[in-house]
């Protein structure tokens, strides 16, 4: 998922004909003050970070004066908010709010269609309010072949209790937001709050747009804006995660998915979307401490496995390694094992001091087993044993280390 920074998201809304307040990205208190003067005094300052929940984290502030803006900017800049360092702030014109709505577009895994969520309640606490009062949330799946028709958008706004001009303005915004959702291959487009000013105008003072990573290849216009490396979903990438991402870029025929977990004792390289989760459940259930999660899709993966193993083993505090995954269908697993073994030999790892368990099964298993014997002490499991047997073993071997 590539979450756009808010300034870029707001630019897209503006180009789609949705009114957004004037805003500017600043990185010093002086700039904040100048901008606030230009915007007429009262402004809203928001930490420009790729994370939700900023208001509750105190990273959205209303500054009554340009001096106040400078003061807040001084406080916010350099602070760590929701795991991200605040290097920049978005300063926007203050919008006088008469009413707040909530709009979100996403995919619904059950109807398998785009889903419009709309509520006449909006604001910071909307999620918990709607959890308590789900009837206030209008949910409307949209057939992707026909798109969000204007009359359907009006019906959605009407169901939420809106009338007259308000209803028409909200419906118009819904249709425009839906177009953004489709045009940019978004996973999520969310405006909360979508506000009605006391002048009766609809304004979007904030916006979240998340692009589907798997569609980035066809959006050159988003290059430099949609950056999947800005966040791993909840915090910035760790140095190890950055290393693994650059290793992944050496070839496009396979993809690595990697998480650097806090702490942990076991370098955990069990691949497979389902198998990796089964193995993770198992190691946690047994009280083991995984230091990573790792998945790699099929391809010519020897070099990636070699580089990734080397990088992962550089993490401090490790007491052992488990590598492998589910039974493969046709990707020869000795290719993976060859990569891992190259790294282990180069790093002069001694499996009697640093326990290593492999669970590899599939074509090439005989060669994989032979490769593993090159370092005495590696325990090798194949299709005779389950993933859980291998996980149990690494937990036993690393327990008292």
């Amino acid at each position, binding site marked *: 998922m590539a979450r756009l920074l808010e300034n870029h998201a707001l630019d897209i809304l503006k180009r789609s004909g949705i009114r957004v307040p004037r805003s500017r990205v600043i990185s010093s208190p002086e700039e904040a003050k100048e901008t606030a003067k230009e915007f007429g005094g009262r402004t809203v300052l928001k930490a420009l970070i790729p994370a939700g929940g900023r208001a509750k984290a105190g990273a959205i502030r209303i500054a009554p004066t340009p001096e106040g803006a400078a003061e807040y900017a001084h406080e916010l800049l350099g602070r760590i908010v929701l795991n991200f360092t605040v290097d920049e702030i978005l300063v926007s014109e203050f919008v006088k709010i008469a009413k707040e709505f909530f709009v979100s577009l996403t995919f619904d895994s059950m109807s398998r269609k785009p889903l419009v969520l709309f509520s006449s309640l909006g604001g910071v606490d909307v999620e918990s309010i709607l959890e308590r009062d789900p009837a206030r949330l209008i949910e409307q799946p949209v057939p992707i072949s026909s798109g969000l028709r204007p009359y359907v958008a009006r019906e959605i706004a009407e169901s939420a209790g809106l009338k007259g001009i308000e209803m028409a303005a909200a419906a118009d915004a819904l249709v425009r937001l839906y177009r953004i959702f489709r045009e940019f291959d978004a996973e999520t487009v969310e405006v909360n709050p979508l506000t009605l000013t006391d002048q009766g105008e609809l304004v979007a003072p904030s916006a979240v747009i998340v692009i589907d990573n798997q*569609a980035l290849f066809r959006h050159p216009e988003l290059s430099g804006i949609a950056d999947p490396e800005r966040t791993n979903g909840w915090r910035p990438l760790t140095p190890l995660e950055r290393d693994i991402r650059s290793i992944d870029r050496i070839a496009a025929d396979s993809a690595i998915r990697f998480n650097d977990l806090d702490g942990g004792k076991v370098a955990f390289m069990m691949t497979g979307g389902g198998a990796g989760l*089964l193995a993770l459940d198992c190691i946690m259930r047994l009280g083991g401490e995984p230091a990573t999660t790792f998945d790699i*899709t099929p391809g010519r993966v020897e070099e990636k496995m070699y580089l990734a193993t080397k990088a992962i083993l550089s993490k401090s505090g490790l007491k052992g390694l488990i590598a492998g995954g589910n039974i493969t269908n046709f990707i020869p697993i000795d290719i993976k094992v060859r990569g891992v073994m190259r790294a282990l030999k180069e790093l002069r790892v001694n499996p009697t001091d640093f326990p290593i368990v492999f669970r590899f099964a599939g074509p090439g298993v005989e060669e994989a087993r032979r490769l593993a014997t090159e370092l005495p002490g590696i325990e090798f499991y194949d299709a005779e044993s389950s993933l859980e047997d291998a996980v149990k073993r690494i937990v036993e071997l690393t327990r008292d280390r």
Partner: protein
Amino acid sequence: MSILLNESSRVLIQGITGQQARTHLSYMMRYGTRVVAGVAPGKGGQVVEGVPVYDSVKAAKGRHPIDISVLFVPASQAKNAALEAIGNDISLVIVLAEGVPHHDAAEIIEEAEARGVRLIGPNSQGMISPGRAKLGGTGGSEPERIYRRGPVGIISRSGGMGGEIANVLTRNGIGQSTYVSIGGDLLIGTPFVPLLTLFGSDPETRAVVIFGEPGTGHEEDVASMVRAGRFTKPVIALVVGESLERFPKGMSFGHTSSILQRGLGSPGRKKILLREAGVRIAESFAEIPTLVESALNKGAA
């Protein structure tokens, strides 16, 4: 019997000239899959492994009756290839590609529904009716090492784990009727419930094992189905991902569906609902053969 696929199913391969397709084509045919034609736009007239290649699905269909199309087509091309198969009313379409954009998946799924076509995937590994035929990558070059014909159906959101389940069953002397890999993506054409309906009316199938993951409401739907008595054969379920609930929200793992959305998709909750409905829950992989065995014995008694 089996569901969806047997030795007489006539199969089309889209993207037949690609390297992966060629490899798997030979494995499929060796296992008994009746591949009647292939499609590769611009390469009509070629022959791959004895299979005639056409420029379009329409041309292939004009010369051969076709029941199933399997798409060995990269993610970026999958939408067009799938729409072509659906548009030509192939009744079962299997999309293997991983990484199909969500918007494309939604379009394919909607079109398939509108035309009454059954779509498996995207991100399916294929399927196998042991001893009869197999599609896609399932089972690789030596499916007989893992799969054996028998009374248990398998449906899995993870291609790899479907194979693991078959492996452990076979090693315990329990065979399988059909295994379907439904795909780990957020948006998939056929979840558990419609396949359970098919297994329900398949006389050979006496129990079904399902492998569930975090995200979506597909396992929850199985619970409702079983609870309502719309599926009466024993169901054994392994739902992984409970450990995810101990990690920060937003962390992403292998499958794009593995996100917890609006109250849906918590593995813990899925297990509670399934258990309450009467589904046998495997707390670990190791419990699967025992649960299946006892389900089969009970059914026989």
